[in-house]
């Protein structure tokens, strides 16, 4: 890995160099009732919109790799023939400017399911191949438990990663393209003092975590507590609205349906992201529903994230970004659910 240090006043220069491409980054979308800014990932039109010191975003950046609705293909229907048109819906590369480690790790986890498998998802892969990713370090929010999930630091899956050191950025460079871009601005080799400052920044971040999840033996405990009453308590609160899965950076479940055009001359096949909390998620042909109860659906979501995926990939599917708990109106949060299943009431 190559390390460089550059002055923060060089950032706009770097932005301008990159801005020949579409740039997606954290922007402010409004303020909540307590006048706190609400951030989300969106296309950035001017440098001043880009808020690299953002706390967290409402939604993950999933919509840029797994859109909530995506036309997989269209059909032209003739009288005695039909033609299928395929489009992976990637039109130009996108620069993702300012992702936190949790979101980079979220993409790395999605890659394990949708990319590094026998049958990769070409729609996802096409979008992933056209991403240039700039990470930026963060300050842990009260709901962040990424450190518990091992996602507080990104080892790969980015082109460059910035760590703020006062008036300067310490930058890790992982790709040749990133090196070329950094060469376009004034930067220098890090010295001993920069190393020390980087380690201090890293140490400070670790000390600022206030939210934790104990994952010790969690796969086994989830198995042991499969019939625990506590699931029913959470199920009573669950709205079965799918918000948790919608904001989750790693929920990838979906359904597919086809619509015939109104003129009957064409049709389209549409993929729609779905949530395992929705009532008909496990409903099969013939109408039988394997999971008609809210608490069972909620439980299986936790089983997939914290047990099934761990057994398959030796890591959790949850990155600990805390978005699901923040956006759940019923206040169902991962740290509380897991603590309750462990028998540790908070």
């Amino acid at each position, binding site marked *: 890995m190559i390390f460089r240090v550059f002055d923060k006043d060089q950032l706009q220069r770097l932005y301008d160099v990159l801005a020949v491409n579409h740039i997606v980054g954290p922007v402010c979308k409004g303020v909540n009732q307590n006048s706190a800014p609400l951030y989300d990932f969106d296309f950035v039109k001017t440098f001043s919109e880009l808020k690299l010191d953002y706390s967290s975003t409402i939604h993950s950046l999933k919509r840029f790799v797994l859109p909530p*609705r995506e036309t997989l293909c269209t059909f032209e229907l003739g009288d005695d023939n039909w033609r299928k048109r395929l489009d992976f819906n990637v039109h130009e590369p996108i620069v993702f400017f300012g992702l936190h480690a949790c979101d980079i790790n979220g993409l790395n986890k999605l890659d394990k399911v949708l990319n590094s498998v026998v049958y990769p998802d070409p729609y996802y892969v096409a979008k992933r191949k056209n991403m240039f990713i700039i990470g930026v370090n963060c300050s842990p929010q009260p709901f962040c438990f990424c450190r518990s999930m091992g996602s507080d630091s990104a080892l790969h899956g980015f082109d460059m990663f910035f760590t703020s050191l006062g008036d300067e950025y310490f930058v890790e460079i992982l790709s040749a393209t990133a090196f070329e871009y950094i060469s376009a601005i004034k930067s220098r080799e890090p010295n001993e003092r920069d190393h020390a400052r980087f380690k201090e920044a890293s140490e400070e971040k670790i000390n600022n975590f206030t939210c934790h999840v104990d994952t010790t033996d969690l796969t086994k405990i989830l198995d042991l507590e499969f019939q625990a009453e506590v699931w029913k308590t959470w199920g*009573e609160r669950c709205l079965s609205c799918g918000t948790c899965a919608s*904001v989750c950076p790693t929920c990838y479940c979906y359904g597919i349906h086809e619509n015939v055009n109104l003129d009957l001359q064409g049709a389209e096949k549409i993929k729609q992201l779905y949530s395992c909390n929705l*009532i008909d998620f496990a409903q099969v042909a013939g109408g039988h529903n394997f999971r008609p109860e809210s608490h069972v659906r909620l439980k299986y979501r936790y089983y997939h994230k914290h047990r099934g995926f761990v057994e398959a990939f030796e890591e959790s599917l949850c990155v600990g970004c805390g978005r699901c708990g923040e956006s759940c109106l019923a206040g169902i949060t991962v740290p509380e659910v897991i603590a309750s299943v462990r028998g540790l009431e908070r």
Partner: protein
Amino acid sequence: MSADKRLYLGVPVERPKAAFFDFTSCEGCQLQMLNNEATLLDFLSLLDIVNFREAMSERSDDYEIAFVEGSISRADEVERLKKIRAQAKILVAVGSCACFGGVNQLKNRFGDLDWVKREVYGSNPVDSTEVRPVSAFVTVDLKIYGCPVKKEEVEVIVTNLVLGKSIVHPSYPVCMECKANHNICLFDLGEPCLGPITRAGCDSWCPSNRMGCWGCRGPAEVANVEQLREIMLKHGFSEEEMIDRLECFGGFSTYLSELK
């Protein structure tokens, strides 16, 4: 309207004779049917429309599909509705009024309907009964939800109806569509919303325009009303404010009796 038969993958598709009827309503749902000029001709080509007061002057009582808008609020409406049911092979309830009673059923919450009549009509009394949805009097084969109905959804439903494909309503609440539209949750902006319990399909029409959901499409297949009540209270909205919303279109009447 062309009488040519449409082909679907080389197979002729019947153009079913269809009629549109209105009962107690603003007739806005029927207006929605005519509202999209870009697709209107294709829409009209799917159906052989024989009766549609808002769109044409010819009338015929020979039809297979009846689209019924409006709630039932007079004795003569019941008779007219039963005649339509006797003629139609498929009766479609269109919009919140037909499906749940709609805004009109708000008068039912006054116990004394004679008082209501006097207040509204004074010395010119009219026949007016308790407002009921269409399904209170006849069998409804298909419902199209919304106040008003969403034209894009109507187009998909009518296409599937004509092709004999199954018609599936979203089982999930508006939150799914609201999140798909990357909206900020209205509760975060200090606005009450019935999105978490209301059936989707509107593409979060109101919340996307920063107006909280009033539940016009009725309950989602899971509607955790009790939990939403707690959420409303937690966000500083009174139970009365929530009940106002739940009562507005009539879709949540069964849940209201539990709350009260």
